[in-house]
């Protein structure tokens, strides 16, 4: 069954994509963060360029830091952002 998730973008990722969020319907074949990233990269420019730099991108699921292999579920809030620079 297709799963609806919310994807948030911050800092330079938000700037380059020109948006703060997307609502994404995950096909049954996509089950984890890495799969979501591949799906987003296939949307073409500017997604492809942004997600080509995935070594500079962190991910959080439901506001907790996560790994690329972490599974996704319907209703999840997934956020992509660069390493943090506060303080």
């Amino acid at each position, binding site marked *: 069954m297709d799963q609806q998730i919310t994807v*948030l973008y*911050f*800092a*330079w990722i*938000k*700037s380059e994509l020109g948006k703060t969020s997307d609502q994404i319907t995950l096909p049954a074949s996509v089950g984890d963060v890495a799969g979501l990233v591949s799906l987003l990269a296939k949307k073409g420019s500017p997604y492809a360029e942004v997600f080509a730099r995935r070594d500079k991108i962190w991910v*959080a699921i439901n*506001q*907790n830091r996560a790994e690329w292999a972490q599974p996704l579920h319907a209703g999840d809030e997934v*956020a992509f*952002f*660069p*390493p*943090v*620079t*506060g*303080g």
Partner: protein
Amino acid sequence: MARVQAEMFDVGAEFAAFTHGRSDLGGVVSFVGLTRDFSGDATVHKLELEHYPGMTERQLNDIERQAVTQFTLQAAKIIHRYGILLPSEAIVLVMAAAPHRAAAFEGCWFMIDWLKTKAPFWKREHRSDGSFWLEAKASDDLAAARWARG
């Protein structure tokens, strides 16, 4: 409880509120981070701080709790700003109270090191030569790693 806000804060008033009604505290160590007007050779006109509402508060509260546990603090407080900050304005205030100074110093140092690598804030400098998102520094990772228990 940590606080995230756009408005400026008054360090004296925050210290007074932090210690109000407490006659059991041995000492408080505080750190105030400020906005600089330079970055390398460039002049910084303003600093923009973005954050992830919700996750930020959760992470800062976790850091406070961990500091209290790890250094046996009597109280801990983090106040962090977001939005547009001008040079010389305060960005962050960290306070640690403990029965004795060593724990207060260590607890404060731990919190500022930890939040620099864990709390979802991002700085963008608006400079004489353009606007730039700052990159995370390896030295901040090393500073945080120093506190890991193991």
